[in-house]
């Protein structure tokens, strides 16, 4: 079980969020949407230019930019 940044995950890979190191507006927003430690996520796909990324969490799909995903560490 290693911990990597969300950005490094591959499409269709699943993992559990280990930590969310974002603050302020971004942090609030990310947490409101349910990206908190302990949640299981699955990378669903990436936009044509590989950014943003779309993830599956708690049964719905969320999109996030790579530089925002950088704040999230996932245990895969």
């Amino acid at each position, binding site marked *: 079980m290693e911990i990597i940044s969300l950005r490094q995950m591959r499409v269709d890979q699943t993992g559990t969020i280990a930590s969310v190191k974002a603050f302020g507006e971004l942090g609030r927003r990310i*947490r409101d949407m*349910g990206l908190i430690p302990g*949640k299981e996520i699955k990378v669903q*796909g990436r*936009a044509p*230019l590989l950014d943003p990324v*779309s993830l599956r969490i708690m*049964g719905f*799909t969320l999109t*996030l930019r790579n530089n925002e995903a950088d704040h999230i560490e996932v245990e895969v």
Partner: protein
Amino acid sequence: MSTAIVLAGNPNSGKTTLFNELTGARQHVGNYPGVTVDKKQGTCVGDSGKFNIVDLPGTYSLTAYSLEEVVARDFLVNEKPSMIVNIVDASNLERNLYLSVQFMEMGIPVTIALNMMDVAKKRGIRIDIEKLSRLLNVPVVPTVARSGEGKKELLQTIAANVNGNVEPLTISYGRDMDTALDEMEEIIQASGFLTEKYRARWTAVKYLENDSQVIESGQKEDRAVALQLEKIVEKVTTHLAATLDAHPEGIIADQRYGFINSILKQNVIKFFQDKNRLQLSDKIDKVVTNRFIGPIIMVAILMGLYKFTFTYSEIPIGWFENFFGWIGGMADSALPDGFLKSLVISGIIDGVGGVLGFVPLIMFMFLGIAFLEDSGYLARMAFMLDRVFRMFGLHGSSVMAFIVSGGIAGGCAVPGVMAARTLKSPKERLATLLTVPFMNCGAKLPVFALLVAAFFAENEATVMLLITMISWMGALLVAWALRSTIIKGKATPFVMELPPYRMPTFKGILIHTWERTWQYIKKAGTVILGVSIILWAMMTFPGLDETKTKVFENQRTVIISQAGATILKDIENFEQDNLKVTHQLSAQALAVKQSLTQVDFDEAHAGLKNSIAGRIGSFLEGITKFAGFDWRTNIALVGGFAAKEVVVSTLGTAYSIGEVDPEETGSLSKRLKSAKGWGPLTAFSLIIFTIFYAPCFVTVVCIAKEAGSWKWAAFSVVFNTVLAFGLSVLFYQVGSIVLT
């Protein structure tokens, strides 16, 4: 007699559908005072009583993150509704409850409408409603808003629970935070700090959440107390950072979800399929947002939309044109010649009629866009375009601002400009503000439609697509150019939910479409009517002076004296027989009549050119001729500053005042097509100019407000117009060379 309740919930939870189900036609859209967020209200009358329902904006949370959230929160706090009907998406229960929990913390009675039960069932999600209700201590009613299922039970439940006094939910946020909260609660209670508005504990939690709105109010309310509270927050924050490497906000979010989970874990919810398994929407997305196919599909969809619009609106537009032509004919025979007749026919009927004539096109366009919106496709567009936009210094949210302003077609720059306020970086904000007016707003649509119908009838949809692409490219390039002149700032987060594709409800689309179409019609009947009348006056006065009128009189006298008496009698009989057409003119009589008409035409033309507007137009012709615009077009473009539709209505009036022959009642498109000096080249040059030049008055005011100074508003007027002119001239000149 009627109970005030509120509908609230996540976006995409079916809230609007439920609202429509409950209120039907008894709804209207207004505004929350001071902000540009829609306030949808309606009434629901039935067996359970009468309810006044306010549909709050969809939000994910009640933090002060977005304007919608603040509006929702303020409404709840100030209006104190008897009940919050919280729409919860059953297929997305966990995240939806995050908001519910916050409602419950406020202490207002909550009824949960557990919506989309059908979707949940299909996904193999089974929910023990009774248990959920018991554990949350809140009534829960299953509904399927799309079909109206559960509506009756919901209303009954609301009626039954409306007058309960509810204990606010208290969640434990961990020992350290709870201690701090208790401390703050005491201080707040003791000094009555904001207590008429919020409950003490709620205020305390907001302080820990670093809620800017509450903190600001707090400082205004009582500096000393505010300072005390802020100190406590600071202390606990430092402590938590040191011991747990955590932040109060993060812990609060965690604990809320923890609370939700503790309930759901108790067999409240059972999954018979993998939660994160690919659903149909996801499979569609694999194709639709694919690297290669995605963009192609996007263009194809736009093309399809334009094709759909132009094809199906053609016939109804014909009806409208005939109708206005008919009214014009009636006015012509009913009114005596003179100013009033000219005002009514040329100013009002040909002016406003020109704009109203496009209602079918507008309607079909809005219909198509409503379908795209409600289906969820627009979110995919934002998703695919975000990276591209960022390359030009814009932002994924700018995609939404663009689309709202008419990126596809038909919108308004004003909300687009408002949307820009949300971008943190001043660079991003200004770049968006100044480029959003380039979009194909609903007011520009008739201008494009007119020109496309007149000069590009074979390729309407393609040209429309071309117009759209030019406006987007122009916007992106200008944004990029602007970014090199302003310093970089912090970027705005782009965290967005991609809702599952939905088959839009017929009712929903119709409501959307009609709302906007009606706005267009209203604007035509008010603002544009007013401006058309003014412009008519400017195009009529001052008339020709004595000497000039004499010249034309002489011309007529000459023609009449040269014609024989029989010919004159012939013409007279013909004119009296006007509506019966039993009379045929001899060839000579016809010739005489035509030359007389020509004199009338020349006179009207001279009159127009001599009018205030005509003189201004002619004055400008000096430079505009390089772009292919004559003085009449100039008048129209100046008028377009009031509202872009006015370009159409003014052209309608200008080519009507010069048009003296009552039999020539063709549509404006036809008139332009055969008018001197007009051709595809001029038309497209005009199109380019219209895309880029100064925003309409309303938008300029909005820009001034949003950018905080008139400097930028002035910049948008001058810069845009200069740019537009440059591009038009370039196009026209190059085009002329190429075509000769």
